[in-house]
C-alpha cells in the first residue's frame, strides 16, 4: 500500500472496465440475463463519479466488479494499473483492504465494535496503526468527535453512514466505492453524507465512484454515467438534478 497523498487533481485513471460482460446463465443463450453487456468506461483519479441507471440496469454489478467483489464473465477491470481478474482471491482481499474503501447502503458496521474501532478496522486488519493525524482529520471531516466510543446500535442511521465514510477514507484508498450510500437515509442525513464525500474529493483528492438512482445524490458528483440494460448509454459532466432527471426519464424510469 502506498501512503503518499495524491495531488488534488490528476488526469490518471483510478478504475476502468474494458469490454466487460457479466452474464447469468449460458452466454450463448439469447435469453440469458446480461447484467453487463460489453461495457467500456474509465473513472478518473481525484474525481467524484456517479453511476446512474434504472433498477436492473447493471449499475450495482458494475460497481461490484470494479471493486473486486464480483467477477466478470468476460473482459477486464483495472484498479489503477492492476488488472483485478488476474488476481487470486487472497490478492483481491489485500487489494480491497489496502486500496479500496467501501460504503454500502446498509450493514456497514460491525455491531460489536465502537465507532472508532469500525473506522480503523481496515488498518487493524492490516496489522497497522492508523496515521493519527490523518485519522483526526477524517473524524473532524465527518463530525463524529463525540460519538466515537458508541456502538453502532447507539448511533442514528446518518451517524452510522458517516462512520462508514470515515472508515472508507481512513486507509487513504485508491478508490472509494459507494453503493447507494444514502439509500436508507432521510434527505437531510443523505445530504450531509454526500457533502462529506464531495469534501473528501475536493480537499483530499480522494477518488469516489458511487452508484445511485437518486438524481439529487448524483448531482454532487463531477460526472454521471448512465447505464441501461447493461450498457453505457450516456454520460454528463457536472450534472444538475434537473438535467439528470430529464435524462433518466428518457431511460424509462
Amino acid at each position, binding site marked *: 500500500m502506498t501512503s503518499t497523498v495524491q495531488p488534488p487533481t490528476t488526469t490518471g485513471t483510478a478504475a476502468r472496465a474494458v469490454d466487460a460482460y457479466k452474464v447469468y446463465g449460458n452466454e450463448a443463450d439469447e435469453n440469458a440475463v446480461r447484467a453487463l453487456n460489453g461495457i467500456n468506461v474509465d473513472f478518473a483519479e481525484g474525481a467524484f463519479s456517479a453511476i446512474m441507471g434504472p433498477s436492473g440496469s447493471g449499475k450495482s454489478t458494475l460497481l461490484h466488479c470494479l471493486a473486486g*467483489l*464480483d467477477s466478470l464473465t468476460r473482459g477486464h477491470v483495472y484498479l489503477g494499473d492492476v488488472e483485478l481478474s488476474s488476481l487470486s482471491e487472497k490478492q483481491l482481499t489485500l487489494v*480491497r483492504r489496502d486500496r479500496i474503501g467501501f460504503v454500502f447502503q446498509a*450493514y*456497514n458496521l*460491525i455491531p*460489536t465494535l465502537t465507532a472508532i474501532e469500525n473506522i480503523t*478496522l481496515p488498518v487493524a*486488519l492490516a496489522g497497522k496503526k492508523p496515521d493519527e493525524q490523518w485519522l483526526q482529520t477524517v473524524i473532524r471531516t465527518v463530525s463524529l468527535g463525540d460519538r466515537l466510543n458508541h456502538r453502532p446500535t447507539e448511533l442514528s442511521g446518518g451517524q452510522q453512514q458517516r462512520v462508514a465514510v470515515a472508515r472508507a477514507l481512513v486507509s487513504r484508498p485508491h478508490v472509494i466505492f459507494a453503493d447507494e450510500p444514502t439509500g436508507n437515509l432521510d434527505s437531510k442525513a443523505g445530504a450531509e453524507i454526500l457533502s462529506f464525500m464531495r469534501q473528501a474529493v475536493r480537499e483530499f483528492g480522494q477518488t469516489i465512484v458511487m452508484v445511485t438512482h437518486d438524481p439529487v445524490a448524483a448531482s454532487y458528483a463531477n460526472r454521471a454515467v448512465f447505464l441501461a440494460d447493461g450498457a453505457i448509454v450516456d454520460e454528463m459532466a457536472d450534472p444538475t438534478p434537473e438535467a439528470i432527471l430529464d435524462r433518466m426519464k428518457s431511460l424509462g424510469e
Partner: protein
Amino acid sequence: MWKVTIKGILAHKIRFLLTGVAVMLGVAFVSGTLVLTATIGHTFDGLFSTIYKNTDAVVRTKAKLGSGFQEQRGRIDTSVLQVVKSAPGVSVADGQVQGFAQIVKRNGKALGDPTRGAPTLGFGWVPDRELSVLRLTQGHGPEGPNEIVMDSKSADKADYKVGDRVPVVTKVGNQSYDLVGIVKFGDANSLLGASIVAFTPDTASRVLGEPDKYDFISVRADSGVSQNAVTHNINTALKNDNLGNTIEAVTGKEITQENQSNVRQGLSFFNTFLLIFGVVALLVGSFIIFNTFSIIVAQRTREMALLRALGAVRRKVLGAVIGEALLVGVAASVIGFVGGIGLAAGLKGLLAALGIDIPAGGIVIPATAVIWSFVTGILFTTIASVFPALRASRIPPIAAMRDVAIDRSSTSPIRILSGSLVTAIGIALLLGGLFGKQITAVGVGAFVIFIGVAILGPVLARPVSSALGAPIGALRGITGRLAKDNAMRNPKRTSATAAALMIGVALVVFITIFGASIRASVNASIDKSMRADYVVTTGSFGQGTLPLTLEQQIRGVQGVTSVSGVRSGQFEQGGSVKQLISVDPNQVNSLFDLEVSKGDIRNLGIGDIAVLDNTASDHGWKIGSQIPVRFAQTGRKTLTVQAIYKQNQVGSYVISNDAYAVNFADQFDTQIYIKTAGGANADVRARLEQVMQTYPSAKLQDRTEFKHSQGDQVNTFLNLVYVLLMFAIVIAVFGIANTLGLSVLERTHEIGLLRAVGMSRRQLRSSIRWESVIVALLGAVLGLVVGIFFGWAMVTALRDQGINELAFAPASLIVILIVAGIFGVLAGILPARRATKLNVLQAVTTE
C-alpha cells in the same frame, strides 16, 4: 401444522443433524449398556444351565458370609460324602475342591496380567464327568498326583500342549505338572477370562484346599428320582446324622438360579455404573438441544410471527416447535438405539482389553433397551425444547414487521437470585448426601448444581469471557478482539453452549482431584509410616495370591531382619460384612507404624483384634472390650480388643496372622513387608529377586517403586472413567460447533462486510476459531470451579476413610484447560469453514 414442522426440519438438515447427533450419542450409550449387560447375562444363563445340567443337588455349609458375588461359605468334612451317598436316590456324589492356581508361562511370567483382575482358578478333577463343570476336549483327566488339565484359552495363550510340563503356583509354591488334557468351562473356552487348572482330587485338597475337606458336594440322582426328592432325602440323612444345622442340600435348579442371579447382581452394578455415564451424556445433549432450539426460534422470529399474523394460534406455534423436537428425538433415538447395539460390541472390546473376557454369544436386545432408548431420547429432547417453544409461542404477530431485537435479559436479578438458590440447594443436597452417606442425594445434588450454574451462566459468561478473551485480544489483534466480542455478545447462548462442556469437564476435574488425593494420601502414609525397605505385592487390589512359602523363603534371605505377610479377608460384625487385615504382631512395629494409641499390638493373640480409633469410639470399644464376630469358616467367635490405632490406611480391623490361619480357609499374603539390615541395597535386593523368580506374580518394590505402583492402580481406574466421560465431552464439542455454525449464519452480513473491507479468509477462520476457544475455555473454567468443589467435598467427606490429603493436581488441571482449548479449536473448524465459504457479495447487498 405438521407440514410446517416437517418443512422446517428439511430446510435445516445440517442443523438438525448436529442436534440429533447430541441426542444420538447419549441414546447409543444407554442402549449399548443395556444390550451389553443383557447379552452377558443371557450368555451366563446359558452357561450355568449347561454346567449344572446333570447336577441334581449340591451339598454345602449352611452358614454364609455376604451374598451374591461376595458370598463366602466354609468347607465341609470329607466324611459328609458318605452320609450323602447313603441317602436314597443318590446315584453319584463327588466332593468338589476349588482354590488358587496360577499358570506360569514359558518365559517365567504369570499367565495374564494380574493387575487387570481376571481370577486364576484351580479345581479338583471330579471323576464323574457329568457332575463336573469342566468338559474335556482333548487328552484325558488328571490321574496321577503330577497331572493336570487346563482350559483351552489359557493353553492357547501360554502356548502349552498336551504332554508339556507346566509350572503352576499354588499355596504350596511353584511346582511343575504334566499337562494331560484340555478342558472347557461348560461350553465356553474360559470363564470370564479366568484361567483354570484341574488336579486330581487328592492333589487338589493338598494344593488348593485343606486335607479331608471339600468346598461342596455335587450329587446326581438315580434315574426317575426328581431333584426335589433327592434333595429332600439328603437333607433328611444330614439331619439324622446331626449335620442338619450346619450343612444343607439344595437342588441343581436352585444352584443354577443362584448363580444366574449372582451374575445378574454383579451386572446390575456394572449396568448402573455405565448408565450414569449415559445419563451424563444425555444431560449434556439436552443442553445442546435447548440451545439449538433457542437459536432457531430467535432466528425464525419473523417466520413465527408471520405464521401468527396469518392466523396460527399460539398453541399451534408451540406445537410446531415441540413437534420438531419430537421428530428429532424420535429419529435420534432410532439411530442411537441401533448405534448402541454396535457400541455394545465396542464396550465388550473395552472389557476384553481390561482382561474381562465375555463368552461369545448372540447379541440379546432386551425390551428395556428399546424402551429406555426411546423414553430417554424423546424425553430429553422434548423437555429441552419446551422453553424455546414457549418463547416462540409468545412472539407477537407484530414481530413480523420488526427487526429482530437483541436479547438483553441475561443479567436480570431474578436470574441471579434463582440461579444462586438452585446452586445452593444443589450444594446442600450434595454435601448432605456425602456426609450422610446417601449416594442418591449426591447424584441429585450434582445434577442440581449443574442446572444452577447453567442458570447463572449468562451472568457469568460476559465477565468470564471478557477475562479469557483479553489476552487473546491483546495477542491476536483485531481478529482476537472480534472473537472475544462475539463470544460475549450473546451471553445466554454462549453460556448454554459452555454449560454442556462444563458438565464433562467438572466430572473429569472431580475424578482427577479425587484420584490425586488418593495418591497423595497413600504417598504421605508411605513416607510417614512405612519402615520396611521393600514390599512384595501382586500389583493388584483385593484377594492375596502370594503363597506363604514365599514369606518363609524371604525370612531365610541373608540381610533380612524382619518380615511380615499381610493377609486380607472378610468377617461379619454387627450384622454386616467388614474387611480386615492380618499381620505378624511381633514384626509389624518394625515394618509399618500403625500409630497405636492404646494397648500394644504385640499382645495380639489368636482371640484378639486391633481396631481403628474412629471405629472404636463409634462403637464405644475400649481395650479389653469383647466384640462378637462371625467368620465364614469358623462361625461365631468373640474377639478381645487388644490395641487401638490411628493409621487409617490399613482399614478398621487388624488381627494376627495366627488368628487368620485359624479362621480363614485360604492362606495367601496380599503383601509382604521386608526390613533389611542397613536399609535397601543392591546385594540384598539381588538375593530377594532370586527368591521372586519362582513366584511370577510377586513384585519386589522398594519404597519409591511401591509408591508409584500404588499410583498406577489409581490411574488405571481414572483412565477407564476418562474414556467413559469422553462421550459427554465429545457431545459438548458438537454443541459448540453447532451453536457457532448457527451464529455464523446469523452474522452473514457482518462476515460479508469484514471480508469486503479486507479481512482475509485466514483472519476470519482465526477469529471464529478463537471465539470457539473462548467458549470452550468458559465451559472448562466453569467446569473447573464446579469440579474442584466436587473434589473438595468428596475428599473431605472421606477424610476418615483413609483419604487424608486433598491434592488439586494443578498440572493435570492445566492440561485439562489446554485440552479444552484444543477441543475449542476442533469445534471451530467447521463453522470457520462455513464462514469463509459465505458469498461476500450476497452478504453485503441489502436484498
